[in-house]
């Protein structure tokens, strides 16, 4: 049954994201470890790589903070299941909590931990309606440490792109050692106070090391990636090794009087996995970065 396939696939995506770090990130950290001068920085990267390999081998979560669960959905308008999806994703989250297991991370301010990773507005689901008969699900659980160092600022439009770039430098410097560097940085520019944050979060999942299709934005990404690495935060904030592994920008049009900028940071464990489900239940899983 198609609904069972969707639910099972969502559970599987949560399992993959918690337990298998995309190999592209692993390769990059391995390369950077070899280039890191300083035993402290190398030891941090080695601990990360050892941890990731134990996780992959045993299908155990690489970090005890398995995050708040989020799904990014692209729903084809001719995919047979539509309004029922919300409920299926909630069910999948509950099952994943038991089956993987992942840590219960949904807290109701008045009643306490819900113990199953679901609650009001959680799992967080981002919907996009697209033409076609397929369903795309991306699972993206995100931990608390790096979530706490996100940043949002409404700049004066007169500050322009220079102001945006300065804010990125400030935000990464402020994150410092707190969110488990080396980081991934997503920058959302324009839109509105909320849209810039969503764009920043989605920017984290743009293909690893692939620059923006707009050459001007691509150049800014390159420039910023170089500059944030000059900050010298280093692996785990101990001053040695890489500070940021990748940085992506997503840009929206803005109000003439507003320049909203959102910055969302991920720890080294940028966990995500994608599946495409066909109308007859064929499932393609994509674990790439």
């Amino acid at each position, binding site marked *: 049954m198609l609904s069972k396939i969707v639910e099972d696939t969502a559970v599987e995506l949560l399992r993959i994201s918690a337990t298998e770090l995309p190999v592209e990130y692993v390769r990059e950290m391995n390369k950077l470890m070899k280039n890191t001068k300083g035993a*402290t920085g190398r*030891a*941090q990267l080695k*601990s*990360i790589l*050892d*941890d990731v390999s*134990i*996780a992959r081998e*045993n299908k*155990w*979560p*690489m*970090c*005890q*903070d*398995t995050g708040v669960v989020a799904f990014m959905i692209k729903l084809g308008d001719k995919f047979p299941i539509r309004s029922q999806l919300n409920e299926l994703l909630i069910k999948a989250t509950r099952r994943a909590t038991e089956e993987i*297991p*992942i*840590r*219960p991370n949904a807290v109701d301010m008045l009643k*306490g*931990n819900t113990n199953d990773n679901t609650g009001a507005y959680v799992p967080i689901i981002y919907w996009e309606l697209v033409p076609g008969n397929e369903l795309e699900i991306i699972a993206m659980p995100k*931990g*608390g*440490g790096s979530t*706490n160092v996100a940043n949002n600022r409404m700049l004066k439009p007169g500050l322009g792109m*220079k102001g945006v*770039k*300065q804010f990125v*430098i*400030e935000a990464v*410097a402020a994150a*410092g*050692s*707190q*969110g*488990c560097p080396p980081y991934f940085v997503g920058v959302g520019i324009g839109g509105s106070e909320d849209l810039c944050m969503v764009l920043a979060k989605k920017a984290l999942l743009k293909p690893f090391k692939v620059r923006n299709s707009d050459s001007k934005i691509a150049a800014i990404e390159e420039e910023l990636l170089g*500059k944030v690495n*000059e*900050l*010298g*935060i*280093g692996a*785990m*904030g*101990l*001053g040695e090794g890489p500070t940021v592994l990748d940085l992506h920008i997503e840009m929206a049009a803005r109000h003439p009087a507003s320049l909203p900028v959102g910055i969302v940071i991920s*720890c*080294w*464990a940028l966990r995500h996995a994608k599946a495409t489900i066909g109308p007859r239940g064929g499932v393609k899983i994509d674990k790439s970065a």
Partner: protein
Amino acid sequence: MEYYLKTPVPEAEIRKLKVGDVVYVTGTVITARDEAHSKALDLYEKGEKLPVDFKGAGVFHCGPIMRKADKGWEVVAAGPTTSTRMEIFEDKFIEAFRPALIIGKGGMGDRTMKACQRFGCVYTAFTGGAALLGAKGIKKVKSVYWLEELGMPECLWVYETQDFGPLIVSIDTYGGNLTADVAKTVNANRDRLLAEMK
């Protein structure tokens, strides 16, 4: 320098450690996050006894994933949580309970640094997120306290460890604070980058 420590770690051994040293701990390591710190200090102030003895042991800023197996509790994943949240009471905690090491991530501030200096304790950094490497160093779950009241991430898990680490000493008993030093450098770099920005 690399050190293999056994708990209870004598104060003299802790006072040998310097910022940047690598430490592995064998013996008792007890998890304690925000709520456990707060509850332990409340009990201390009321003059009541704690169910565990932190003296000479490791205090681990960690909210683990645990699993109940037939033979008792097992660790699934146990990496450090962000330590700065505990800065508000770690100095009092060190003074009251005299642990040998604090284990966490992200570094701690001046108050903790001063308490380390005064009472012979070090703050050590375990690689954030490396929860399975953490679990690998834990040989046995000896006991658990306050589980019902505080829940799995916040309660006191008493672990028996074998060469738990590597831990990087980032606050020593000489006033050294590695993450604070790095933050100073980062801020100087930030100011330069901001000034140069076109």
